[in-house]
């Protein structure tokens, strides 16, 4: 079933906010684990957030999230 997701972050958000959003998306993934449509949407938001997080960390002069 479709979700109307309003992400609280965008490419200019702080890394900590984007990280919190990624955690929230992980929770949504659990919550909608039996809903293929919702999982597709969540995956897209995860991909966007991961890209923005990388950029935010670079802008903030921090380390790579994987390190």
């Amino acid at each position, binding site marked *: *079933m479709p*979700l*109307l*997701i*309003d*992400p609280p972050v*965008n490419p200019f958000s702080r890394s900590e906010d984007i990280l919190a959003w990624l955690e929230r998306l992980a929770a949504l993934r659990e919550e909608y684990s039996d809903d293929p449509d919702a999982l597709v949407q969540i995956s*897209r938001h995860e991909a966007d957030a991961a890209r923005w997080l990388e950029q935010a960390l670079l802008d903030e002069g921090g380390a790579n999230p994987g390190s």
Partner: protein
Amino acid sequence: MILFRFRDRRPVRKARPPLARIAKARTVRPFPGDDWWEALQRIADDAVPGVREAFLAAIATLVDAVSLEAIEAALADGDIGAAIAAIPWETLEESLAPMRVQLEEIFDAAIEVSRQSTLVHAGLELAFDVPNRYAIEWARQHVGELIVGVSHETRTAIREVIARQLETGMHPMQSARLIRPMIGLTRRHSAAVNNLRARLVEDGVPPQQIDRLVDQYRRRLLNLRAQNIARTETMAAANAGHRALWQSAVDNGLINAEEWEREWVAVVPDPDARTCAVCRALDDQRAPVGGTFGGGLDGPPAHPSCRCVERLVPREAAPGAADGPAPEAQPEPPAEVAVPEAQAAEQRAANLDQVEQRIAALDRENLVALDADGNIVLDRVGAVDHVQLTEQDIDQLAGRGLTLTHNHPTAPVSFSIEDIAFAMRIDAAEMRAVTSRWTYSMGPGPTGWGSIDRANAVISRHFNEVAAEFAEARKAGQLTRSVAERIFMHEIWQRSATELGWRYTRTAQRRR
């Protein structure tokens, strides 16, 4: 970047503005070499703020003059009629004197526009003075009718609301306190205010907060009504002045009423295709000088906030209308059609306002869909950052031209991509987002939302462009991170809407 991933399952739009009619209007109007109708509308528009304030000031004076004790005493006896009689309506005539003067001025100014337009269209130079008493008499009579209308609406509202409250066992003193806030509101608005109060009580909102929210809502509705009245009355004055010149010319034997007639001009250049069905039906209809149009209308306006005008045309120039409008050629009586339409729009605005007032304060997302009459057809509460819908919900919403509104509890930012994708999917008439600072609105253009592929391409491009521009501005120290974060989506929607021909607005939040 693929933004919209759903299949295009939108139904074929059924109800479309009659584009052929609009297209014809664009080629026929504006009238060559002049912009008289704009001048007429401008005279009215310039006076709207003054007339609105005059109305609000008059209502405030009346409210102050109401004796709470007298109303309470009447209600203690169970006499609603006596409670209504305790409102000193007679003070309203004096309080509305500034509005009367303003309408007289519009009336007089419109006569000069009428001179020019008559010269342009009919080749008649009507260089004589229209007696000033025409304006005075018209304004006095018109304001008198307004007072009757306002007092009648309030009386009806009080009867309905207070009778219900007394039946529920509400104390007369409490009921008496409900009356003053109803003065000046329409019956529907009064009901909406009291429904909001009941809803907030039901939700367990603290009494002080209820009073504050209800009062804000009431003031907003009163402002809405004042604006509506101002727009209607100023156009009525402008059109009445416009007509007065021709009538005077006939009265003075300067033109022959057998040779000239009036033509209703409903469809002036209308890029937004907003002309209502009532006015489209009246467009090009003719009436004798001093006579009436179909449905007994003296002339524009046909309904609240109507923007129509009229012009003088040679009678022989009307193909098939040499004998004037035959009864069978008349449109449906507009008074009967226009009022429900206008009321529906007013009701929708009032209900939407009430819904948004409620959801603005919630900490979870709430999506509400309203139909053209303002009825709520869907109300879904979700989590802080999303709402879940079923396929049945979507089937129920699709293709009905609904207004969707929802709140963004987390940040005062504009629409997400999914918000707009969803609006396209169900072919919504409007999508709205209420935040703590702004209310955003997005709607399709005159030809609809267009193709999803094109929207996807346009929005993707603007997304990337805005991101790059903001990043540059950040590096140059011209933009703070927090501002960039807050306006990022707004900037994308502004640019995308412009390119796609959609209607996008952001208005400051005044409710809280």
